[in-house]
């Protein structure tokens, strides 16, 4: 207990490894069961049953899918640029899985007399007892998610297939456009919070019994950010890059086996991250009634909110038809960007007047 390595107690390292592994496995399981949930939910919305054969009500379906993909043949197209082709799924997967490092999923819990903040990239200073996290947490997420575009653009280019190239190009143009509008939409949140640290943003929303959410103060920013994020991660109704009616399977047309699965995992992991980020910035994070007294309630509220938003994404897929590409770029550049800027200016003047 008293061993100190590099100015940090031994308990810190144990907690770090535990947090990283638990969070990683949790996201992995969520990703696996999100595919199942999506098929089930859309199935029931369309008066079908969805997967039923593997296990009770098809509960083993994600595992069956995973095993099946493992045993599939790896195909590298004959004229593909091999290195870029092989590394593209990895580039898509890694940023998707490391973004949630800065998202706080609970308050500070105490284990064996040592305080552990429930956020991966944070620690408790031994001398002052204060919780420190990366004080540019939001920018870290924006920076990492801006790297996801390479996986897709490389996959499209390296496959040496026309469908892949078109899918990859569409995807990258769409992702960068909406990254911009999402980035502008959240500026107004920082104007209220005065910090970029995720931990503090969550703490600032803890008032009024855990319901002092920024979604109520910045409803326009909330709606814009959520829509832009859905578009950035290529979910329906903005899934143009994979529009199967036009582009077969978009940028992953030529991919098979585990490499294909990795693009899929990256897409769902991005969905988890986006929902978690929206929860943190706008829906009070892990805050809720009594969350500050019973610290273990925090993660429960957090997961419940994230799952609700994910359900909402799936609901959208069953309800809204796909956009046309020109409409998509039109909304991104001609509606969301000016709206975001106007929102910033109005928030600035509003807060000054009051």
């Amino acid at each position, binding site marked *: 207990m008293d061993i100190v390595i590099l100015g940090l107690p031994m308990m810190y390292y144990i907690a770090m490894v535990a947090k990283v592994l638990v969070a990683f496995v949790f996201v992995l399981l969520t990703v696996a069961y999100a595919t199942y949930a999506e098929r089930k939910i859309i199935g029931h919305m369309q008066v079908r049953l969805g997967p039923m054969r593997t296990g009770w009500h098809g509960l083993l379906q994600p595992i069956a899918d995973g095993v099946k993909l*493992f045993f599939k043949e790896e195909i590298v197209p004959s004229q593909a640029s091999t290195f870029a082709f092989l590394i593209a799924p990895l580039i898509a997967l890694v940023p998707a*899985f490391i973004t949630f490092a800065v998202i706080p999923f609970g308050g500070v819990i105490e284990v064996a007399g040592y305080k552990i903040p429930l956020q991966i*990239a*944070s620690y408790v200073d031994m001398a002052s007892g204060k919780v420190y996290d990366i004080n540019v947490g939001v920018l870290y997420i924006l920076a990492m998610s801006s790297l996801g575009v390479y996986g897709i653009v490389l996959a499209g280019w390296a496959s040496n297939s026309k469908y892949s190239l078109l899918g990859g*190009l569409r995807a990258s143009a769409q992702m960068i456009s909406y990254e911009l509008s999402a980035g502008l939409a959240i500026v107004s949140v920082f104007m209220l919070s005065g910090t970029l640290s995720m931990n503090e943003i969550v703490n600032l929303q803890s008032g009024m019994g855990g319901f002092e959410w920024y979604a109520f103060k910045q409803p326009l920013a909330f709606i814009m950010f959520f829509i832009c994020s859905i578009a950035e991660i290529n979910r329906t109704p903005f899934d143009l890059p994979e529009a199967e009616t036009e582009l077969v399977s978009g940028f992953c047309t030529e991919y098979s086996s585990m490499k294909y699965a990795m693009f899929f995992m990256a897409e769902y992991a991005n969905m988890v991250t986006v929902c978690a980020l929206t929860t943190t910035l706008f829906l009070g994070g892990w805050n809720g009634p009594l969350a500050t007294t019973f610290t273990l309630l925090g993660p429960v509220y957090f997961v419940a909110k994230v799952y609700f938003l994910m359900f909402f994404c799936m609901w959208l897929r069953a309800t809204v038809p796909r956009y046309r590409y020109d409409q998509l770029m039109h909304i991104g550049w001609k509606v969301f960007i000016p709206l975001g800027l106007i929102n910033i200016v109005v928030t*600035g003047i509003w807060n000054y007047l009051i």
Partner: protein
Amino acid sequence: MLGAYLPILLLVIVAIGFGLVSLVMSSLIGPKKFSVLKMSPYESGCEPVGTGQERFSIKFYLIAMLFILFDIEAVFLYPWAILYKKLGMFGLIEMGIFIVILFVGYIYVWKKGALEWE
């Protein structure tokens, strides 16, 4: 400082490790039956025409350039946003000028039709 970044390093290692292991495993387990037709790019069952790396519209290039410029604008907005309560009216006016100048550029882009997709 170290305490906040070490977990990210560990997470990166875990994520890359997971990706590499699953790639290597699946390439070891999966069957390998080579055939010329299977390895050719997919083109709805027809013979592939030309290469798959055709030239494409300049539009995408323009979007990427505009993205850089507006992204830099957004980067300037972040430090301003967290300080603007402390900067007061002065900060509001200086950012107002900044946004107005860039909005002129935005209107120019719009009027020139650079945001239209045919």
